[in-house]
């Protein structure tokens, strides 16, 4: 039986050019970059006297190429996590819910909760943040106000699609249950709504609104 995350790991393990092998530019790529942007940089410099123009341009392009290679090195050192890469897990293996009914129906627990501080855990090559959250109101599930639940979620900022979760803030959480009384958002982008001025605010790439019944149970305002 292939579980929720297995498809992803199976496909990734047969990637003939793993992401880790795509770090940094090759010497050829760096030279090609210098070929492209060099003349522009050369033109930026003050025009040389006509008699020495050729020599100036050769030197300018050479300097530019060196600068580009240096820039490349600085970028490579300062920006180790490329989009879609990194030590975390940028792409959750999860469904997308097209309607409110589907989203709420797939959730075993829907609560309004305040998130506590978390720590990272790695299981089967999947790094997630684990944190507790204090339930402030419940719309679905058997966790009354005041109880604490344990959450596991994709570490914020570890990829292009992560919920903007921060300790101390309130959220509406639509959760699925993992083993051991631990919960996880039903979808990285759809399982978390921010709470702002009494409203539930959906994240990017989520155009599904919560039902009036859920909002009322969570003591939130309807749109």
């Amino acid at each position, binding site marked *: 039986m292939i579980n929720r995350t297995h498809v992803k790991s199976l496909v990734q393990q047969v990637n003939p050019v793993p992401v880790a092998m795509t770090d940094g*530019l090759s010497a050829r790529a760096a030279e090609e970059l210098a070929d492209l942007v060099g003349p522009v940089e050369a033109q930026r410099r003050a025009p040389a006297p006509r008699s020495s123009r050729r020599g100036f341009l050769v030197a300018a392009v050479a300097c530019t190429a060196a600068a580009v290679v240096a820039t490349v090195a600085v*970028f490579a050192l300062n920006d180790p996590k490329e989009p879609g890469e990194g030590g975390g897990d940028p792409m959750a293996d999860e469904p997308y819910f097209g309607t409110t009914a589907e989203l709420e129906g797939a959730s075993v627990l829907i609560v309004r909760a305040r998130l506590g501080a978390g720590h990272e855990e790695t299981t089967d090559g999947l790094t997630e943040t684990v944190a507790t959250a204090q339930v402030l109101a419940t719309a679905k599930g058997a966790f009354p106000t005041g109880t604490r639940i344990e959450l596991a979620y994709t570490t914020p900022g570890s990829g292009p699609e992560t919920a903007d979760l921060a300790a101390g803030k309130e959220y509406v959480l639509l959760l699925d249950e993992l083993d051991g009384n631990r919960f996880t958002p039903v979808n990285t982008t759809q399982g978390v709504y921010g709470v702002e001025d009494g409203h539930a605010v959906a994240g990017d790439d989520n155009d599904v609104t919560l039902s009036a019944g859920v909002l009322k149970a969570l003591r939130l305002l309807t749109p």
Partner: protein
Amino acid sequence: MENIQTGNDRERAARFTALYVRDHPRVSAFVYRRTGDRGSAEELTAEVFRIAWERVLGGEEVGTGWLFVTARNLLSNHHRAATRLTELHRRITDELDRAPASGEDSGVLETLERLPERHRDVLLLRYWDGLSTAETAAVVGCSGPTVWVRLHRAREAFREAFRDVHASPASLSPEESA
């Protein structure tokens, strides 16, 4: 998705350099996975960025999604004959001097091979190429939410096909058959 916008030449060059440094390795790997030949991949990737630079100089916007779409278009122009995934994998692992596919890996490759192109595409774009939802949407020409739906369906199709592959004795390695 970061865009390059018109500005002075120095700013253009700096922005293009940032885009190039960030995305050239990704585009190059994307092409390499589909050609099975490093030299061809380097040539094609260079062409992608040459076109990108021309667009930048012309005051047009260039973003990561555009780079992958252009790479895909160039691939379709230069590599019309579809090479089997298993063969591409073998060529690349040979060239990189990496271990060949194991029994389970062969099953996964065969499963991917059996999938309809629309399912295989989205799985590879996400899990091999590491494209974000927005980048995947640009490449396949759909909306972000549609990418999630397609990914969900592709995973379901993979699970089903993978079960079939493992149920077929011919697909198992000698050790697994024993």
